[in-house]
């Protein structure tokens, strides 16, 4: 065999190995991204579970003070129960938003009970739930970032060919509730 032919064969071998390794890196990257989405979704669930567990404690602390606010308690319990039955990103997002709204209303009503506001257990629970809400919001953002990266990758060349072969489809983003997008009417009543 002529030396020139050997060199060309070696270079061709590098090209083949390079192409296979590159395709494998795309494949592995997409699989990792897909699993990252599942992981970030599960990480939201961890916090939701924690918030879910805090609610009975909150109700227990407050029911003695807010005996005339049955409607607020019912709304909170319904939202909590609804959350346990949902499946899928969109449904989960809806149920989550309902619970967040119900909690917001609950804390707004609690404001008018000075004795409750002075209760240490209530303050601790409010702080804890507040913290969990912040963390849930952060993790939703993180989930959306991961999904966006995945959706972008599977539509880009050359990743789209591997994605097509793997039959990967775009994932759904965690969207905010329509109710939360409405403008908040703020009125200032200025006295002359």
């Amino acid at each position, binding site marked *: 065999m002529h030396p020139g032919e050997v060199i060309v064969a070696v270079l061709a071998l590098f090209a083949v*190995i390079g192409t296979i390794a590159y395709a494998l*890196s795309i494949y592995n990257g997409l699989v990792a991204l897909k699993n990252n989405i599942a992981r970030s979704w599960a990480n939201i669930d961890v916090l939701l579970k924690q918030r879910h567990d805090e609610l009975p404690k909150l109700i227990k602390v407050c029911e003695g003070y807010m005996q005339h606010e049955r409607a607020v308690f019912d709304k909170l319990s319904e939202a909590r129960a609804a959350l346990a039955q949902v499946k899928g990103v969109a449904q989960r997002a809806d149920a989550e938003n309902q619970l967040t709204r119900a909690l917001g209303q609950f804390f707004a009503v609690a404001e008018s009970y000075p004795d409750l506001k002075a209760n240490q257990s209530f303050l601790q629970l409010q702080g804890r739930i507040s913290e969990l*809400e912040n*963390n849930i919001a*952060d993790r939703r953002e993180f989930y959306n970032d991961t999904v966006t990266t995945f959706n972008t990758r599977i539509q880009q060349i050359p990743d789209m060919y591997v994605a097509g072969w793997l039959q990967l489809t775009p994932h759904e983003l965690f969207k905010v509730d329509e109710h939360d997008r409405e403008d908040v009417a703020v009125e200032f009543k200025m006295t002359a």
Partner: protein
Amino acid sequence: MIRLEVPFYATLSLCAGPIVFARGFRDLRTRRLIQNTPTARIRSMAMGLVEVSGTVLERSVILAPFTGHECAYWEVDIAVRTRRDSWTVVHRKSSGNPFFVSDGTGVALVYPQGSQCRTPSPCEEVCPGHSLPECYERYMLEQGLWLRHAWKLSALRFRERTLEEGQRVFILGSAEPRTPAIDVSSPVEAATADGSVPWLEPELAATGTEPAPLRRLAAGPGASHIVPAARPTAVLPQAPPLPDAARWRARAVYATTPHVSDAPRAGVARPAAIPPRGPGRVQALHDRISAVIRRGTNESTFLISAESETAVETSLELSTLGKLFAGPVLTALGLAFWLYSLSAHHLTK
């Protein structure tokens, strides 16, 4: 001379080619990892591989060995000039001291041991080997670099990279839950004659912190508080009892309930106030640690960069392309030399 050098370099390029090619794929993988990992907020980051961006906060004040600057972490290397006017790194060392990183939402403790540290502008100086400035001479003596006399025959390059208080960094590493910590006050009194604290050294080794800074702190007049994190679950039971509980005032601090954040509920991060430098700051920051970031056991990628994420990605992309091209070319050149040499030898026979 040339007859000996050419086959040597041909063999070298033949062997190095596939390695360079493989390293190109390693850089590609790191770049992909950076691209695929969204930046997390420290207060809510999940355990496992994370990417965070924040500001460096010193845990222990250390001095960079060459410049003497106060910093949170340093990395130095010494290189000697070769005959072809290139540099060969002959010594590399880093401080390994853990530091805090804060992104306004929370604080994480970083154990830089085993990281790939990238800082944009290292402090660099080239000196003739026969007349080295005192700081370099002293450093080589302290490190016990017994080859230093041979290195001094040529020019030496001293390079120092530091991460300083307030510097913005981008970190890709593995987050682990905050481990229980040991809070030791006034280690001066229990230090041995050479200034070291024997039973504390395994704890420090676990954090990547060397005993040397402790010795310096212990010996110094202002040394009153050092808080090394450790893995006491495994190590503490084996530690000997404290020599004098009253004098030591040592206590184990176990991870408490998470810090209740006062950030707004809308998920918008409000910068949490970082205590100013001074007594009690380390403890205050320690109390706010959400997690520890270090080199993972499953995922070994650990990058600390003072460059932006985009700059790191660009540099990795260029490096990938260069290595994927250079690998086959080097192999082809080495192979060409040997094949043509062998065929010429065969023809002459």
